[in-house]
């Protein structure tokens, strides 16, 4: 394991950000840390990056305890914060060169790695422009380049696609895959389940400072695969209809989603008939009924009763 945390705790006054976080991440994978805002993702990243210290528990990176030997492991990590941590009055080249120099890079080696990072994020042709003249997506890419220019073994990406255009988002997603192909371990936090599904080899679902489920996407789907999902599109108020359906025997959960209701049930044959009957009695017109494979959102919903964006 390249990262291993045991019983990690951290509190900010009354708020318990981490409550005994247990996590094991293998070398060379993309690990997605998935959870809603305030679940503890950024706190975990900040502890690993050495920005804050844990109140308790242990954390090891490449077999070295982080709490006592931060500097020894910092050189092998790259940190890409959620905010745009770049200097807008410096050029892209100057930004990357500055952050590269903090990792001891100098002279021709530094120049070579800075050029490589610029190529990697497709900013080489705009390297002499001040960052303040970049679009939001370009700034995000520069933010990424500043974190990976020293070619770290482990890269932490804290919600790197927040608030950017689809083109830049795709570029960042492809960059992350490429970094992984280069043998880097990527720890990726997001509350966008689609990204996690697309990118991650392994996913940890975090809520209230604890990992509540961990594994590959298929493993997680299996958690709720014994149950079945039905999506029913109706003509009427989906929220009140969902409340009505939740009372039916063998229905595990019913929630309003877009123009319909997502019903999780235990697979009993009579459930579908009961659901349709209840909707009809309520005077609601059914437009469409479909069976669905569970996604990460469903997994999260099933385990916490909340959606990721709550």
């Amino acid at each position, binding site marked *: 394991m390249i990262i291993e945390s045991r019983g990690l705790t951290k509190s900010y006054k009354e708020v318990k950000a981490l409550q005994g976080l247990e996590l094991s991440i293998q070398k060379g994978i993309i690990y997605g840390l998935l959870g809603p805002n305030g679940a503890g993702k950024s706190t975990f990243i*900040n502890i690993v*990056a*050495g*920005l*804050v*210290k844990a109140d308790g528990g242990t954390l090891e990176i490449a077999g070295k305890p982080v709490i006592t030997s931060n*500097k020894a492991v*910092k*050189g092998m*990590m790259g*940190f890409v*914060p959620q*905010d*745009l*941590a*770049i*200097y807008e*009055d*410096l050029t892209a080249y*100057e930004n990357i060169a*500055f*952050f590269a*120099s*903090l*990792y*001891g890079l*100098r002279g021709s080696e530094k120049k070579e790695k800075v050029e490589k990072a610029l190529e990697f994020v497709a900013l080489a042709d705009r390297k002499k422009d001040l960052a303040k003249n970049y679009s939001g997506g370009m700034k995000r890419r520069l933010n990424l380049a*500043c*974190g990976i220019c020293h070619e770290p073994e482990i890269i932490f990406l804290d919600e790197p696609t927040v608030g950017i255009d689809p083109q830049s988002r795709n570029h960042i997603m492809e960059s992350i895959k490429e970094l992984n192909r280069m043998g880097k371990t990527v720890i990726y936090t997001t509350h966008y389940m689609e990204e996690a599904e697309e990118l991650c080899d392994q996913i940890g679902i975090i809520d209230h400072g604890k990992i509540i489920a961990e594994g590959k996407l298929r493993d997680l789907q299996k958690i709720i695969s014994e149950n079945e999902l039905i999506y029913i599109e109706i003509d009427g108020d989906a929220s009140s209809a969902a409340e009505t359906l939740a009372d039916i025997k063998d229905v595990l959960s019913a929630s309003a989603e877009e123009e319909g209701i997502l019903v999780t049930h235990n697979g009993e044959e009579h459930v579908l008939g009961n659901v349709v009957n209840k909707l009809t009695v309520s005077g609601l017109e059914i437009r469409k009924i479909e069976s669905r494979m569970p996604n990460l959102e469903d997994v999260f919903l099933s385990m916490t009763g909340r959606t990721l964006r709550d």
Partner: protein
Amino acid sequence: MKILNFFLVYAKRTVRDRMFFMIMLLFPVLLIWLLGNAFSGIMGDQDSEVIAKARMLYMVEEETELSQSFEDFMVNDENEFFEFTKTNDRDQATEDIVRNRYDAFVVISSDSMEVYKNSNYNFNSSLGELILKSFADDYNLMYEIASLGIPIQNGGQTSMEMPDFTEEVSFDRERTPGSMDYYGITISTMFLFYGMIFLGTYFAENQRIRTADRIKASPVSMLSYQWGTALGSVALLAAQSTLVVIVGILVFNVYWGEALHIGAMVLFGEILMVSLLGTLVGLTVKNENLIAGISQIVIPVIVFLGDGYVQIGGGPAVQTIKKISPMYWVNHGILDAIYLGDYGKAYTSLLICLGIAVLSTIAVLAVNKRREVSNA
């Protein structure tokens, strides 16, 4: 060597900041020019014309020895008191006096002189009257001697041509700072305080945009970051004050006398003080707007108390309050060194600045330590 990276980034970013150029270079030069000119004549400027020349009109009614002597010794003799204009129109001359175009009007007849004064310019016209009276007394004396047949040696030399055996002694003989000198020095010390805002907000901005987190996540110590950036501030402020002093000397003739090295030493002490104080403020306050807001209030007070705008008078209480201003120590340290040759205040000022710099350094170390403990 990592300190150098922080030094360079601070210097590069600050030099690219137009506000830095405006506030730290353009404003000081403009203010030296503006205040230096506005207060010239009030602050003991030796080159300024404190008393304007008396503007005199004269009319010769009849060409006589008297009129000849008057024109030889008063009109044609270059002097610093009068500016004579001849006229032949008595009415117009009277009108000119009434309308304040001239200070006095002298009418020279065959054997007498009449002086008409402008009461609105009493000082100049009275001065004119006094000197004309002295001329008349000298003339009368020479006339009497000549009429008694006593020969006048050296071809009729008059007392007006006698060697001057008197020496004018001023009670305020030492050089005093003129307005350009005063503001050239004061503005050089004043604007260094604004360097604290640039450094303080720089640290606070790094925390806001999380570049400080990125630095903290790297294998570099936070002290390297803090010292490197503070050193960048020291270098920039040293360059800035050097430029302002050089422009002051070359363009505005600001007088630094024999004490330029003492001035440089005191200014350097001030630069160290504001840079380390700025580091402490930036790390503890963390909010750029708050730092700028507080500074906009505190710095003008420091400058005002330090005689930065005008020299403040007042009783002992006011003089004591003035001494809390760092600007007061620095300013008077340099001025006393230049104009009184007294280096004592300059050394004291340097020691105080260095003392504050050391205390700020200790406070920065304590803040770092406390943050480590609170995170542990």
